[in-house]
C-alpha cells in the first residue's frame, strides 16, 4: 500500500501533553515538517520556552535548549553566534515573548539576529492556569481579569508583529492563524519563509500564530476555533508585515499588507 500520510521525522515518538483542542500540537507539527522538508533537522538547534510548550524539547527531533521564562531569544542569540551556519529557532508563548521577554525579543529583532521565532499567541497564560496575558483582548475574562480586561485599568493588548515590523533588523514578520486547514497551510508557508530567510542570512524572522486555549478560555475546541476567527482576528489582523525582497521561496504566504 502506498503511504499517504506519516509522522514527520521532525517530531520524536513522545506523546504530546497538550489539552484537547489546543493548537500548540498543530504548530509543533508544522515547524517539524518544515525543518524536515528543508532537510535541516540535523542542522538545527531549537529553544523551548517556559509555558505550555515547555516540554517541546522532548518533542522536536533536533538538538534543543530549555530557556528561562522569556529569555529564549537571548539564548538563541548565544547559540547562533557560536554556530552561525546552523538553523536556530525559538518557540515562545505570548506571556513568554510579549511580557517577561519583551526586551529580549525586541533586541534580538533590533540586532537582526539570524534566528527564527515561532510566536504562539493564545491571548492567555495557559500553563499557569489562565491568567491575563499582554495579548488578552479587551473584555476577555481570565483568572486575573475576572470581570474582563479593562484597558483603562490594565492597558491595551499588544500587537507584537506590528511593533516588531518597525524594526529594520527584522527581515520577516508575519501573522497567521491555525483555526482551519486553509490557514494551517498558510501558516506552514510562513514558517517555511521565515526559515528560508534565516538560511539566506537575511536577518531576524518571526511568525506570530493565533492559537487556541479551550481549557483556559472555558470553551469547547470548536468554539475556540471560532473565537480565534471571530474575536482574535479582527484585533490581530493576519498578514505579512515585513519580508525581504529576495525571499519568495514558497510564494506569498500571508494575506494583505497591514
Amino acid at each position, binding site marked *: 500500500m502506498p503511504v499517504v500520510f506519516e509522522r514527520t521525522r521532525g517530531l520524536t515518538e513522545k506523546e504530546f501533553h497538550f489539552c484537547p483542542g489546543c493548537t500548540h500540537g498543530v504548530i509543533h507539527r508544522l515547524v517539524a515538517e518544515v525543518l524536515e522538508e528543508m532537510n535541516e533537522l540535523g542542522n538545527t538547534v531549537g529553544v523551548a520556552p517556559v509555558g505550555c510548550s515547555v516540554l517541546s*524539547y522532548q518533542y522536536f527531533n*533536533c538538538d*534543543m*535548549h530549555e530557556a*528561562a521564562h522569556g529569555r529564549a531569544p*537571548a539564548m538563541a542569540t548565544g547559540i547562533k*553566534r557560536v554556530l552561525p551556519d546552523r538553523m536556530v529557532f525559538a518557540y515562545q508563548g505570548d506571556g513568554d515573548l510579549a511580557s517577561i521577554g519583551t526586551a529580549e525579543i525586541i533586541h534580538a529583532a533590533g540586532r537582526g539576529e539570524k534566528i527564527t521565532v515561532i510566536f504562539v499567541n493564545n491571548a492567555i497564560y495557559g500553563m499557569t492556569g489562565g491568567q491575563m496575558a499582554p495579548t488578552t483582548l479587551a473584555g476577555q475574562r481570565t483568572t486575573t481579569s475576572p470581570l474582563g480586561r479593562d484597558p483603562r485599568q490594565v492597558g491595551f493588548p499588544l500587537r507584537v508583529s506590528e511593533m516588531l515590523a518597525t524594526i529594520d533588523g527584522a527581515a520577516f514578520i508575519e501573522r497567521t492563524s491555525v483555526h482551519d486547514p486553509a490557514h494551517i497551510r498558510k501558516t506552514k508557508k510562513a514558517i517555511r519563509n521565515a526559515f528560508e530567510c534565516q538560511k539566506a542570512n537575511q536577518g531576524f524572522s518571526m511568525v506570530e500564530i493565533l492559537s487556541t486555549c479551550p481549557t483556559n478560555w472555558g470553551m469547547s475546541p470548536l468554539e475556540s476555533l471560532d473565537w480565534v476567527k471571530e474575536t482574535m482576528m479582527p484585533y490581530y489582523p493576519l498578514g505579512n508585515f515585513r519580508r525581504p525582497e529576495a525571499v519568495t521561496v514558497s510564494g506569498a504566504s500571508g494575506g494583505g499588507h497591514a
Partner: protein
Amino acid sequence: MNQTMNKVLMKGNEAIAQAAIHGGCRYFFGYPITPQNEIPEYMAREMPKVGGVFLQAESEVAAINMVYGAAGAGARVMTSSSSPGIALKQEGISYIVGSEVPCVIVNISRGGPGLGGIQPAQSDYYQSTRGGGNGDYNFIVFAPANIQEAADLTAEAFEIADYYRNPVMVLGDGMIGQMMEPVVFRDTPKRELQPKDWATTGTGGVRAPNIINSLHLQPADLEKHNEHLQAKFRLMRENEARSESYQTADAEFVFVAYGTSARIVRNVVDELRERGVKAGLIRPITLWPFPVVAFKELPDTVRGVMSVEMSCGQMVDDVRLALNGRFPVGFHGRSGGMVPSQQEIIEACLDMLKEVE
C-alpha cells in the same frame, strides 16, 4: 619562553580580559557598568582579532542567557559585570548550574545595596558564595589579590569550568579592576577534559538530540539530579579550595582577608610583628569552596582570629563555621567603598587581644 620579556603593565580589567582570551574564551556577552567597563571594551577591540565574538547585550539578564546559549552550544564563553548587574544574572546562573554548562562570570564588585556606589567593596560575598539564584547550587569563586593572580585565575577558570561543567566566578573589586601592575600571560594548568559531546551543535542526523535543560518535573528525578550536582560540589570542596597562609605557624593573632583587603592586612601583619605581636594572615583565594583546611592547620598558640572585609561582615560567618568555636572570632570592616587603613586594623587587633586576655 622568556617570561620577563613578555611582562606588560596592565590595568586589572584589561588583564582579566586578555587572560580570558589566553584561556581560550572566544565569546563574550556583557552590558556596561562601572567599574568593569574596560573588560567589554577590551573584548570589543580584541575578540574579533582572534576570530571570536563580542556582543553588547541589552541587559545583564540577556547577557547571561546569551552565555547560557553559547555555553550549551559548546563554546568557551564569559560575561563580566559589577554588583547590581551580577544581581540581574542570578536567574541565569542558577539555570546554567542546573543545566551543567560551563562558563566564566567576572564580578568587579562595587558598594551596595541598591545602586550603592562605584568604589571598591567586598559586599557581594554572600551573593557570590551563597548563590543569589534559586535552588541548591554552588560554584567556585576566585578572589585574586593582585593583577597577576587575576590573570592566572581567569585563564584557569575556563579549564575548571569545563572540567566540572559548572560556572566559575572571578570576584574582584574596583581596586583590582582599575589598578595597574605588571603581568605575564603564562601557561595555564591543564585539566584532563572530556569532549563536549553533550553540546547542541546539531545532530548531523547521526546521533540522538542533545538537550540543555534544567527542568525535572518528577520529584524523584529532580532529587536524583540534585544528588548528582551535590556530588560535583563535594568534589570541588575536596579538591579546589585554595588559600595562602602568611606567618601563621607561630601566630597568636590571625587575620582573614581576601582580595584588596588582604593586601592591606599583609602589611599590617608585618608591622605588628615589628611591634612584637605575632600576627598572621589566612588569605582565601577561593571564597567557595572556603579553605577550611587552612583554619584546621592553625597552631594552638592562636588567641584570636579576625575577619577584615570591605563589607559589614559577611565572610566572618564562614570563618566562624571553619573554626567551629576553637578561637574567638572578631570582625573589622569598612563599607560603601571605604578602604580600611593599616592603622585602624592594628588598633582593632590590639583591642581584640586585650578583650580575649
